[in-house]
């Protein structure tokens, strides 16, 4: 079953328009279209930011910045260069990572890692995300331990690959390769279109 943000045609069974088309309308200043964008992406954006930043109050702030940025820069989304949801998630991830890497947050990092595993399964179940979640979990399972740890420490905990190498006690070159190979495996397992 296609996830709502991946629907190709304008208007699916539940009346949702395709995200890329909505972004196009938002770029022209259409606030109604943006409200529909919000319905589709606010959960994924907030969830990802919360996962990286951890603190709910800060996460809300960052998510707000990201979503306003989606509106402000909608004209910069280029369908030739990937899916609309990937564009939004890239904005969200970049902002979240910037927040945790800022000087003030640096002090909390040790603690974040300590909590990361504990909170892993405490994320509220969200109906729309469940299928996605199961598929991603299954695909993560096809990675080697080192590939999986390299990818998730970077993506979910916001570490640089240098920090990941340090944490896992492996050479830099190994981490670079594992991140790349791990993502390639994820891509192939998820059946992401080669754009």
């Amino acid at each position, binding site marked *: 079953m296609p*996830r709502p943000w991946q629907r190709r045609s304008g208007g699916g069974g539940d009346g949702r328009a395709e995200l890329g088309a909505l972004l196009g309308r938002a*770029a022209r*200043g259409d*606030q109604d279209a943006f*409200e529909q964008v919000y319905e589709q992406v*606010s*959960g*994924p954006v*907030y969830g*990802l930011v*919360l996962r990286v930043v951890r603190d709910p109050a800060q996460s*809300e702030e960052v998510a*707000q910045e990201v979503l*306003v940025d989606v*509106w*402000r*820069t909608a*004209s*910069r989304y280029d369908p030739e*260069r*990937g*899916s609309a*949801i*990937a564009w939004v*998630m*890239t904005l969200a*991830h970049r902002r979240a*990572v910037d927040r945790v890497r800022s000087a003030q947050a640096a002090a909390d990092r040790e603690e974040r890692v300590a909590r990361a595993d504990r909170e892993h399964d405490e994320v*509220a179940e969200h109906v*729309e*995300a469940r299928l*996605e*979640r199961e*598929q*991603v979990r299954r*695909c993560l399972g096809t990675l080697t331990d080192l590939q999986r740890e390299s*990818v*998730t420490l*970077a*993506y*979910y905990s*916001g*570490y*640089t*690959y240098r920090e990941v190498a340090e944490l896992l006690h492996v050479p830099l*070159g190994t981490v*670079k390769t*594992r*991140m*790349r*190979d791990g*993502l*390639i495996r*994820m*891509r192939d397992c*998820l059946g*992401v*279109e*080669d*754009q």
Partner: protein
Amino acid sequence: MKQELHALVGAYAVDALDDLERRRFEDHLAECESCARETRGLREAAAHLGTAVATPPPARLREKVLADVSRVRPLPPQLSNGRPLRPRGTPWLLNLAAAACLVVAVIMGAVAVFAQHRYNQAEGRNREVVQVLSAPDRQVESAPAETGGTGGTATVVASRSQNKAIVTLAKVPDAPKTRTYEVWFMGPNKPRPAGLLNGSGEIVLASDLGDATQIGVTVEPKGGSDQPTTEPFSMVALPT
């Protein structure tokens, strides 16, 4: 170097590069279609990791975002690689030919003047460098220059009596094409621009130490900035 950069494609897709590496990689992407394609695929895969942790946000977020949106104007589309499009209907080829003739004439004249000027300038600059290096109160300070783990350093030779400082970088990679390193006087007041560098093996000769207590070096867009737009990757103390 190309191979080494390309190996970072996975780390780039999950934002695991530091600022400088990220910019270098993005410059590389602009020239390498196969890397751009691979990056897109890996980004799509990474996005799934993101959507898999979707969580409903608090209801008030919607109100806040929509309130902001009603006050913020969307950016206009970016035109072909950021360059403004040429106005339609201009006989630009003719204009171009005429302009080219004029440019050639002007250049011929300018080259002669410029060469002399450059020579005088270089002479003058050498003299100033020697004056700083040989000043009795000169002080030499170095500090690590953290631009991606190459173990680089920034070195400053400064003299209060000459009111000048010489700044060099060693073992620091060249700035990416669209960036430059900018040297700043830093102290109790706003940072003041002191000069630009593209990498190791160049010097900045900066005048007017003023109340500065430190020299900072940042990464800036090509051409430099009026105020730092990134955190200094190196700070070197100035003599008091």
